[in-house]
């Protein structure tokens, strides 16, 4: 069971668990922001996995930066990356090279976990092969259903699409393939009538 209470939702909305060490020949661990604390807890349970671990850490978009602590954890391979987009090709390579015994862990924001799951699926792993644990910000990755552009770190509802500028409301409908929630124009029927943005995904 997830430690974060997301409240009741619909069936396409992903659910997350708690990371637990699984035996494996190697471990790919991807974390952002507060997810660093879940990596600490994971390593505390199974210190023997550190040597075989490839840890990738991305400071949170909300400013949380645990990179000093992450660098000191003693992972066999450690990489600090500025954004998921910048480190994606590296993750895809590790997933592609991965042998049967590769274990994959993702923790932090939904955006981070969703993208790791998407890339794992594209590499041929089943989506539930990735262990997840939500930590920190509730910010969402949202696809505009109109222009198809994805806006990262959406914290308010409604928000303005960073690509086409339409005012979008954020649905719980979620696509694993896109690793994104869906955004739909809120003032299509009454142009200009946009309710004030509420901080729903802090």
């Amino acid at each position: 069971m997830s430690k974060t209470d997301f409240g009741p939702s619909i069936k396409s909305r992903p659910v997350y668990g708690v990371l637990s060490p699984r035996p494996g020949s190697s471990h790919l661990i991807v974390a952002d922001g507060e997810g660093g604390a879940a990596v600490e807890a994971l390593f505390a349970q199974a210190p023997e996995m550190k040597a075989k671990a490839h840890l990738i850490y991305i400071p949170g978009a909300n400013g949380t930066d645990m990179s000093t602590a992450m660098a000191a954890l003693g992972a066999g391979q450690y990489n600090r990356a500025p954004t998921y987009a910048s480190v994606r090709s590296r993750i895809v390579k590790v997933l592609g090279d991965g042998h049967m015994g590769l274990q994959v862990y993702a923790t932090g924001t939904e955006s981070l976990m969703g993208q790791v799951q998407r890339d794992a699926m594209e590499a041929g792993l089943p989506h539930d092969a990735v262990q997840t644990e939500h930590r920190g910000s509730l910010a969402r990755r949202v696809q505009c259903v109109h222009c198809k552009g994805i806006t990262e770190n959406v914290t308010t509802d409604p928000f303005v699409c960073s690509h086409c500028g339409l005012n979008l409301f954020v649905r719980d409908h979620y696509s694993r393939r896109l690793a994104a929630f869906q955004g739909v124009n809120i003032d299509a029927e009454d142009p200009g009538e946009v309710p004030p943005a509420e901080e729903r995904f802090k």
Partner: protein
Amino acid sequence: MSLDDFFHDETFFGDYTFKNSPRAIKRFPFPFPEDDYMYSVNMEPHVPGRPGSVFEHTFDVDEHYVAEMRDRARVLRDDPLRCQSLPHMTLAGWDLLELIMESFARDYPQWFSLTKSGNQWHWINRPLNIDQKFTFLDESTLPCGPMEYITRQAQGDFTLQDQRNDNLWIEAGMVTTQADWSLDFDIGMSFHEWHAPVPKAHEMGVFDRALKFLLQLQHGAPVRRFNWTMTVDPLLDTSPENYPKWGPGKTTLTKENIGQRQHLRVELQTLFRLPRSNAIAFPIRCYLCSFEDLVTQPKWARRLHRVVRDLPDELATYKGFIRNRPLMVDYLSQFDDGAPTSPGWWPDE
């Protein structure tokens, strides 16, 4: 009757010249067997129905065929993402092509013909002026993939579901006449995931039971069901992608124009197990009828009034007509004298 006399030259967009003939109104698949409506696992065998009805044949080809195919081509020109097929779905696309070509040629020999010599097939579609020789199961012999090829020649949307891990996965589709859902967003989802936005039905167990039933669907034993919603103006492409373009139309409905502009939108959905791929094909055929034409059948007028009036708010909101419901009820109430209605959906003779 020549081809040009039967098939309308009309539009589903812009000037909206779409119109149902008296015959089309009479055979409109009115979807309400009773005076109220709630979701249920409403599936029945898709067997040939009354001659002249939309159930007479496996696929109904009607007076709007040519115009609908033109409209599909227009939508695809604007947005090619309306037709997508994940790489492993090509075989299911061939299964679908075979099903449609064989059914059309058998049921409408005056318009379509299919001749085969082994895998060398010759397809003629007279209404659309198509004459195509190709090798079955060889993609390089068609101008595009098999699903796209055949669904550019068949009315209604189509999705193809792969079956694995005791679930169905929507992994290919041609979707240009949809009631406000996005193939581009939903492609790759499982049965409960793509149905996630539907209110109430999950809690009622409708989707659990429907999925269980579909996993057992047999080749040669297709089933059918209805779905319905409301659309202002005869617009086939009510996509979420284009919602900013068609959404404003909902606000311009008035007491004076509602009869002509408000349409009941009915989907005749059929489900076929496909023989080679074991996928399930899901044709979603959309029929539109204006309120003004519907109320020419007194039974339908009475019943539609009662259904729209009493529908739970959650459903009216989900179907996108809550803001116009008072106008609709007002208009329809003129045609409801309170008399009882006969069971079933056929109009009274």
